[in-house]
């Protein structure tokens, strides 16, 4: 068994990450609050939130990514019609069954109509807890920068009030630096994955990244480093899988077993948007000058292509560039049922990858999908066809 310099083996690391992955009751957050009395834990819905603000308030940023296949929906379905996606119903379920009562507040980013309306539902159902709606600018210029700085400042001020002390510029700069390190480590992990995908399977990589939503960022930084070292040392041999990119899973995520199914069907997922929220900003935010402005500038200038952001004339360009950079042989469009942003984007992205000569296939899922045989057959056929006939 290979171990890292902290003594944890790859198996230990993955067991730790997977335990967090399935910890719908947020035990790790409860433990943190016990050992950090008087400090706040604030949840954020997908896709992206300025977690630096929570950290700078001395709090624990927590990613609320739905209940996956770990939460039985008892009450949540009574709040949503059958044609609404699954993540809001599991989130409401977790709110009503007490799983999220450890959170002192929630952030709802402006990614779609469902998450937007969920912010209002939260205000009605849990009026004692702050529910911030984060209006991300769709104007990617000076006007947007100015507006977004104001949005961040507003939330930062209220976050400070919740924490019982003002967020100072120095504290925010320090938090940005810690998160910049996290962004750099995630990029390093991505490079390793591109170079040796057989050592960095998507199911592991996503577990390790997602763990960052439930533990302090400093610990997450250590975890990523440990994982990279342990996975590199694993000595796993390459097999003849097809290199593919996974697109459309940036909010409601597929079950871990669906990702394993893709691997077993012959795909190396070398890039994905599962972790888009963690990697939305390219490079560092930087801690020079006004930290609120730095965050706003980074978002406006350096956020990646995303279905919920409007950038004229750029649809699909970044996806094709990512595919080229990853030496991807195909694209898997893998979106949740009833996800308007992903599904409305899909035909435009398909057009772009077809123009680029990349093979693709598409299927849908819900976060609690339990049957994978059809997907396995589809992904397997896709991988086989790439191996047999593709010239991409």
């Amino acid at each position: 068994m290979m171990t890292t310099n902290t003594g944890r083996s790859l198996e230990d690391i993955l067991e730790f990450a997977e335990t967090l992955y399935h910890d719908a009751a947020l035990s790790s957050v409860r433990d943190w609050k016990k050992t950090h009395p008087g400090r706040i834990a604030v949840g954020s819905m997908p896709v992206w939130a300025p977690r630096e603000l929570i950290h700078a308030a001395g709090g624990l940023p927590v990613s609320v990514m739905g209940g996956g296949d770990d939460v039985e929906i008892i009450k949540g379905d009574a709040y949503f019609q059958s044609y609404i996606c699954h993540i809001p119903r599991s989130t409401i379920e977790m709110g009503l069954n007490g799983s999220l009562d450890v959170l002192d507040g929630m952030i709802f980013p402006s990614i779609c109509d469902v998450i937007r309306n969920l912010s209002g539902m939260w205000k009605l159902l849990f009026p004692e807890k702050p529910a911030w709606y984060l209006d991300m600018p769709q104007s990617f210029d000076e006007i947007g920068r100015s507006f977004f700085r104001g949005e961040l400042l507003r939330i930062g001020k209220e976050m400070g009030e919740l924490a019982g002390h003002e967020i100072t510029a120095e504290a925010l700069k320090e938090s940005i630096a810690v998160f910049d390190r996290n962004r750099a480590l995630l990029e390093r992990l991505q490079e390793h994955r591109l170079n040796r995908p057989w050592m960095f399977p998507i199911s592991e990589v996503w577990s390790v990244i997602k763990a960052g939503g439930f533990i302090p960022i400093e610990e997450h930084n250590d975890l990523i480093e440990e994982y990279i070292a342990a996975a590199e040392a694993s000595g796993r041999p390459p097999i003849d899988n097809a290199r593919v990119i996974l697109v459309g899973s940036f909010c409601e995520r597929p079950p871990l077993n669906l990702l394993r199914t893709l691997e077993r069907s012959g795909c190396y997922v070398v890039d994905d948007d599962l972790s888009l929220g963690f990697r939305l900003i390219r490079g560092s935010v930087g801690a020079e000058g006004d930290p609120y402005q730095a965050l706003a500038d980074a978002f406006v200038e350096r956020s990646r292509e995303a279905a919920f952001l409007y950038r004229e004339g750029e649809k699909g360009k970044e996806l094709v560039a990512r595919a080229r950079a990853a030496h991807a042989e195909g694209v898997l469009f893998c979106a949740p049922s009833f996800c308007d942003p992903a599904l409305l984007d899909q035909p435009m992205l398909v057009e772009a990858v077809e123009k680029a000569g990349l093979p693709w296939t598409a299927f849908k899922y819900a976060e609690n999908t339990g049957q994978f045989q059809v997907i396995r057959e589809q992904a397997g056929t896709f991988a086989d066809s790439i191996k047999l006939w593709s010239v991409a």
Partner: protein
Amino acid sequence: MNTTAKKDRSMEIQKAMLARHYKRLAEADKTGDKCAYTFVPGNLTELMHVFDLLPVLPEINALQSAMRKKSAAYISTAEKGGHSEDVCTYVKCDLGMSRSGNLGPTGDPLPKPSILLLSYTGCFTFMKWFEILQREYDCPIVMLHVPYQADGRPTPEMRQYIVKQLEKKVIPALEEASGKPFDIDKLSDLLRLSARAEEDFVQVLDSAKHRPSPIDAYFGGVYYISPIFTAFRGTESAIEYYEALREEVEERVRQGQGPITPEGELIEEKYRVVVEGPPNWTHFRDLWKMFYDEGAVVVASTYTKVGGLYDQGFRHDPSHPLESLADYCLGCYTNLNLPSRVDLISKYVKDFDADGFLINSVKSCNSFSAGQLLILKEVEKRTGRAGGFFESDLVDPRYFSAANIKNRLESYFQMIEQKRSAAQPAAGDAS
């Protein structure tokens, strides 16, 4: 079913307005008129008129296609082109229409847009919709991002953000597309005309507080909102239309008459209800008849507020033209948060003395639909009046189940009847 609908003067005026508008659109290629495609919520009609741009509203194209029974084929065209069955059918219907000759309601082709004016108010799908259309038409596009009233009120920062976008992005883009300069005095003049029409429009909506209500504020309301929500705000013809409509409605109040429906005048107003959610367009008249058959009148609706909450006091203000446009965009119903929507529906139930409220939950519109089941519970709790819920779609006929909806409505009105009986002393009760 009575097939000869009675036409009032206001109806004739509206018909003539629409005919003139679509004639201009049909002849635009010959006359050189330019047009801008845009959306109903947060529409900047007066601003487009400043540049002599003819408004074309894709939602209206879609709903008219549905009323003319053409939407199924258009949706099918879009789905064959790779669009998911899960997503908004307005988008697919409009896309299918554009790929099938882009024929407007008069049967003439609509002109291609000189510009897409993406007023992004209260609906994320708008953004995707125009991204798709931009690829179809390969034309300029400009986006106005309207922040969401997440905390139940607009802020000065939101207003400033919109005004800056208007000044720096939208107006220059419209100047470029139209080849005409911006004239703020002209905009003010148009907004002054808008405010006059808005005043009469509000009086029409408020008339439903009378018993019997002289109007149906949902099915009938769709016709009343048409000029003010589409191409005619800021025009003399809109003023003429709303003056005529108001006079007719006031006369109906004096005569103690109920609303005019396609089945004829509703003689006995048995139930007064508020309706939340857009109408179904594929079976619009069938659904209206179900209400008519029960003697139900819709006295207030939220759908008739997607293009502005005039009844809550908003008026376009010629003295602050750009700020007024910003306030207008911020205040559209679809840009209100859920608690504000609950407040408004509850207010309608009380102000219009409704027996209850109904939610038509449409599959296509998450902006409306996500959270409606909580709205149902909250409004029931606050008002003590009965709430009902049924599902349909905007323009996809596959999602209209007449038998299910009829059953729901019959059960709902029986429930109201039962509540009334329970509230009255039993026969022979000495008290």
